[in-house]
């Protein structure tokens, strides 16, 4: 049964429908692997064992009744980042200040997943309030990269990315404010997509930076990501920033054809600061696209240097306001030492928030304070508009933009926290995508000299998900999916012990 967990989400969904396995089989297999591997990787904050069994039984009934014939992922176990509200299930944002918080409602994406028959098997670890690039700022301890446990999985959705890579779950939800899906996908060697701002309802996503946050999906291939994204996309009357004009049919884009697709590579993305191995992989990927009939060119995107500073001004400003509600009055952590209102606020927040969150809230409060608003916040908004214009211009010439997801592969644990400025700068390729509200996907495209995975980023125009999904799918057909070394080795043991046949690549199941 253990081999089940290596398969793709879609294949599991198909097998359940075909009655080759039951939902319970899939859930059992998955929970078994979590029990075995999660003590090492720590992808989860909460594992929902009992709830998953209950859901399995319920979903099986609905499947048997034919209610879920149109849901290809019905019955497939999945995981949700711990900043997405789940009714009655702890949702902590990996923060002490929400260590015991149980939402009284389900996020819109959770409602949609439940309706589609998803089995939520747990809530994944993350950087506290999604602030960080390593999942080390979690109050509940760091997640380790399944490729090398001395390395970080990336962040902030590190738990979701690592869980998918470690086969602890078939697919997962993350959130992406400045690269928090794409960068951990890149570090963990999996696929992660952040859709256009407004595609997925943010209702129930505990906000970090409202104008940048989007929920997206992780999978071991683009097909799983696309199908899952289709489930959670769509207009929501509860989110005024969700769009109603688009239809979101991503599975249609799962076609191996990039002939004539115009791909631009910003020269600015290949300059100083980019690790040589990463650069090589990206150029190799460009060659593969070229060989499949795409038109690939380098071009100047400009304004790249301003993306990181303007991102941190906007994101921190919004965060300073969004996180003010955590004050110990209504829910979550409440300082016992406090006397009087001012102390309740001060002690609760001093004790409840970690350093990275405090740093960003202070930056945010500063850039919004009177006398500095114009010099910082307003200027950042102007830069944001310029960055958006730059992309619009590029998309007059190209269908998609190709580049690295991150300048380097996964750093070792502890390395980034000692130098936050360096950590911020490593977001250089991802943050401008959020500032412009564009869709982007990170897919594995090789490994560096240390054996760590490298990710490439495909950026689309607004609501151009189908182009980047098609390009990702097409690229996938030309490369093998690589599993983390330790996990691949374990698979071989399973084979030698005479279990089921080896399925080395989920891609082949499709």
């Amino acid at each position, binding site marked *: 049964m253990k081999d089940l967990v290596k398969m793709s989400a879609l294949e599991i969904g198909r097998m359940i429908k075909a009655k080759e396995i039951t939902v319970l089989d899939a859930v059992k297999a998955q929970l078994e692997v979590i029990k075995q591997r999660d003590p090492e990787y720590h992808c989860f904050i909460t594992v929902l064992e009992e709830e998953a069994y209950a859901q399995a039984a319920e979903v099986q009934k609905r499947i048997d009744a034919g209610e879920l014939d149109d849901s290809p992922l019905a019955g497939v176990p999945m995981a949700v980042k711990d900043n997405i509200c789940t009714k009655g299930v702890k949702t902590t944002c990996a923060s002490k200040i929400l260590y015991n918080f149980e939402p009284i409602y389900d996020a819109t994406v959770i409602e949609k997943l439940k309706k589609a028959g998803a089995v939520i098997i747990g809530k994944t670890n993350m950087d506290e309030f999604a602030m960080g690039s390593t999942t080390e700022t979690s109050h509940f301890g760091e997640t380790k990269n399944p490729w090398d446990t001395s390395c970080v999985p990336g962040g902030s959705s590190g738990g979701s990315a690592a869980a998918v890579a470690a086969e602890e779950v078939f697919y997962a939800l993350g959130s992406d404010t400045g690269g928090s899906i794409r960068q951990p996908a890149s570090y963990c060697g999996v696929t992660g997509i952040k859709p256009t701002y407004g595609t997925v309802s943010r*209702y*129930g996503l505990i906000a970090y*930076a409202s*104008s940048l946050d989007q929920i997206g999906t992780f999978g071991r291939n683009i097909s799983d990501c696309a199908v899952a994204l289709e489930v959670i996309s769509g207009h929501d009357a509860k989110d*005024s920033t969700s769009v109603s004009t688009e239809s979101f049919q991503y599975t249609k884009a799962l076609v191996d054809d990039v002939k004539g697709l115009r791909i631009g590579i910003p020269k600015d993305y290949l300059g100083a600061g980019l690790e040589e191995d990463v650069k090589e992989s990206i150029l190799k990927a460009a060659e593969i696209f070229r060989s499949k009939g795409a038109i690939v060119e380098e071009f100047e995107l400009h304004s790249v240097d301003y993306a990181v500073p303007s991102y941190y001004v906007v994101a921190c400003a919004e965060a300073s306001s969004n996180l003010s509600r955590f004050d110990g009055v209504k829910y979550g952590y409440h300082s016992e030492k406090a006397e009087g209102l001012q102390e309740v606020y001060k002690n609760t927040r001093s004790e409840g928030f970690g350093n990275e969150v405090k740093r960003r809230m202070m930056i945010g409060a500063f850039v*919004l304070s009177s006398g500095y608003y114009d010099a910082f916040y307003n200027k950042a908004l102007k830069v944001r508009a310029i960055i958006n214009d730059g992309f619009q211009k590029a998309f007059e010439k190209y269908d998609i933009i190709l580049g690295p997801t991150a300048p380097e592969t996964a750093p070792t644990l502890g390395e980034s926290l000692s130098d936050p400025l360096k950590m911020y700068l490593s977001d250089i390729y991802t943050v401008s995508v959020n500032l412009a509200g564009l869709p982007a996907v990170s897919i594995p495209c090789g490994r560096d000299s240390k054996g760590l995975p490298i990710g490439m980023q495909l950026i689309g125009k607004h609501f151009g998900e189908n182009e980047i999904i098609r390009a990702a799918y097409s690229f996938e057909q030309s490369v093998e999916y690589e599993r983390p070394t330790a996990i691949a080795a374990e698979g071989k043991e399973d084979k030698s012990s005479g279990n089921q046949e080896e399925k080395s690549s989920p891609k082949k199941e499709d």
Partner: protein
Amino acid sequence: MKAYETVIGLEVHVELATKSKIFCGCTTQFGGDPNTHVCPVCSGMPGTLPVLNKQVVEFAMAAGLALNCSITQKCKFDRKNYFYPDLPKAYQISQLYLPICRDGGIEIETAAGKKTVRIHEIHMEEDAGKLVHDPWEDCTLVDYNRCGVPLIEIVSEPDMRSADEVIAYLEKLRLILQYLGVSDCKMQEGSLRADINLSIREVGAPEFGTRTEMKNMNSFKAIARAIEGERKRQIELLEYGRKVVQETRRWDDNKDTSFAMRSKEDAQDYRYFPEPDLPPIEISDEWLQTVKVRQPELRDEKMLRYEKEFDIPEYDALIITGSKHLADLFEETVALCGKPKEVSNWLMVETMRLLKEQEMEPEAISFTPAQLSALIKLVDGNKINRTVAKEVFEKIFKENVDPEEYVEKNGLGMVSDDGLLRSTIEQIIANSPQSVADYKSGKVKAMGFIVGQTMKEMKGKADPGMVNQIVKEMLDAL
């Protein structure tokens, strides 16, 4: 003492009469058990998002149009950040940079004459909750029922110079808003709240003096007292060579004095920035036009129409249109009974008398047009006489009785039973030989005694015309 001038500007908060709150579907109803009119959105639960109630925008536009403002067709919301337990998100969604209405004004009239008070802006925002101190447990509790109730804040220019002008401005404002139906403007329930910005300067001085902001007045009378108190306090400071400190003060109407709440130095930096959860509001020409067309008749137009259409005196029209509730009552009753002058009389005389006696505002009148109309029909149909009608009206006013039922139950109907009247009068004539003799000797006035005795005997319920006629007939026949 030097001659001083008082300079006053007002910030008026008005709760809008929408059914649901500004950013969620919860009811705006006043009262209710604590925290029963709340949902995840208005209680600020993590992850929730605001969705704008369109009715709020339309009410704000209607107010702006009636107050002669220009409408900002591309406006947006901003966040005002501050910590307080009655504000569960720790920010209030308000408007700073692009308020929905700007540059308006209304004309007011006082004993000093007519003048225009300019309106700087009107912006939309959400109300906060309420803190309740529990003396038993010695702790403070929060009630979020008012959280998210829509407000507009109407900010005037510093154009007023006396309490009289302020009251005239507020009365006019209240009437306009009530006529528009955008708010009930009940100060007691907090649906109209005015903060007073007041400063003093020597007459003729080119610059304004340092101003204070006064909060917490819950009636027009309290506002007038607060203005007078603050004016005196500031003049005294200046006379003693001291300075007015820019600060926010809290009026205590029981103590007839104010207390400093916070000075400019403690003023909070609200760190306003555009609300990212709400897209900008685009008010199309068509939408604006729809609201314009829907604007109801306001007081001045109504007065003219009453004089013309119903032929009632200007003074009556002035009084009746002085309250939206009274005007509605008038029109609806006229529609039911078709007797505008009768209706006007009942409102102008008996209603006003009872309001004064009970110390009530016209808004608190609880009887219905149907009740008043029924009463008028009873009088008109000679079912009761005027004396009885007044008694019945008082019952309607105070106890909301059904007039027909009440008259029936208490036997107040006019006696027009010919036989009964005749036998009663016969008896009285027999017992009043002196009066009969006087009448017969040519003193016609003596008949009055017989009539009076009859009415008394009939407990006022006899038809006076009939009594007169029968008495005369019977006396003449003797």
